[in-house]
């Protein structure tokens, strides 16, 4: 628990939301005998080492399975995901500007062919 929830405010908030639906976490959450100061290596987690390794593996292996998953950030190569999203946004803007340009040209040609007489 300490590994997951004690290292930043956002994680503590998440724990409050998950376990106490927004209320303050009970003292037992912090004082329970199973609480240890989180360390950085699997070596320090004897009982749940396979479980933690399994979660890590699943996180590394996660890939989008469908179109809807494309909007979800994976855990590996987030830079690639951001680049992809940025590129997609750029592409959409490009396509929109192309459509706008075409519409502008069509309107301009229409206006050239059928000029509106100037008011007298």
């Amino acid at each position, binding site marked *: 628990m300490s590994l997951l929830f004690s290292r930043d405010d956002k994680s503590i908030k998440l724990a409050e939301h*998950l376990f106490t639906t927004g209320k303050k976490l009970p003292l037992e959450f912090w004082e329970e005998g199973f609480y240890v100061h989180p360390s*950085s290596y*699997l070596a320090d987690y004897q*009982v749940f080492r396979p479980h*933690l*390794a399994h979660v890590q593996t699943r996180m590394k292996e996660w890939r989008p399975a469908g179109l809807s998953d494309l909007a979800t950030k994976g855990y590996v190569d987030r830079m690639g995901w951001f680049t992809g999203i940025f590129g997609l946004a750029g592409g959409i803007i490009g396509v929109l500007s192309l459509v706008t340009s075409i519409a502008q040209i069509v309107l301009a040609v229409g206006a050239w062919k059928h000029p509106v007489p100037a008011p007298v």
Partner: protein
Amino acid sequence: MKSVKAAIMIDDDTSSDSEDSESSRTEITLLDRPIAAKLHKALYGSSSNYSLGFDTDWSPDRVSSNPTLGVSPFDYVSSVQTFPMVWSEDFVVNEVWAERKKGGYSSSVVGKANKPPLAAVVMDMIDLVEFLKSIASEEPKKLVEWTKEFVQRTQLRSVLISGEEADVDWAARGYIADMFSIVACVSCTSAKPPSLVCGQDERQHDRIPWAHQIKLPGSGVLLPNPPPVSLRALEPSNPVLELKASYVDSGPFKFKRTRHLDKHLTFNHDGQKIRLFQYWGSEIPKERLPKYASIRIYQDHALRRFIFNLNS
């Protein structure tokens, strides 16, 4: 024994994630209090401060002189530490003494017509606790090997076996394995008492009995099915810095709480939610036993380090 009635646990609610609630036994069997106290002492040393609940010579005057310990002579005080005593009583009444139409309970071990007294079973249980304490720093072995060694080394009070290999083996993986489930508080986070079926006669020829599947010292008792992972992923030098709740939650996986320790840090059925064990619950009720024994049962438990396989 002071008083004997049939013992039945009435609470069989299986809802997994509901809040703790109180439960009570409609009828009780009373284990002799000094023996109950011995079992308690073997499991928890002198950590408890409610010895009055175990006094043999209970009288209304004694309770009224100490109203905070208002315990009737027919039940235990409200503490998770009394669950092993309750389970022991239920084990003897519902299994060892049970008369079934189809198959009995370890009839070649505990007898068919004449069953051992409750006190004898519990005294053997105390010996088992002492034996387990004595092997706590040994190299891990299968539970059945330990229980077999226990049967061979100890003069048991509740069994009739001759000492033949087949009898010893059956007692070790059946009857004694069930005793182990009680003293080790197996499935203490479940809403149900430990499953005490290893010793049922119909299971005598099980090909892979439970006691063959777990090793001790080790956490297999509480976490029987660790997820399959590669040796590379298990490298102790692997960093775990990315396992921060906020980081995990920012991706496709979310968290879900569970009341079952064996499901801690496992994925749910759709593979998108990581279950986290909530080890605390509501307050322990003042007068009756809580519904769940909960992980709190291991606080000061003599076998705690043994079954969690904690080296330091």
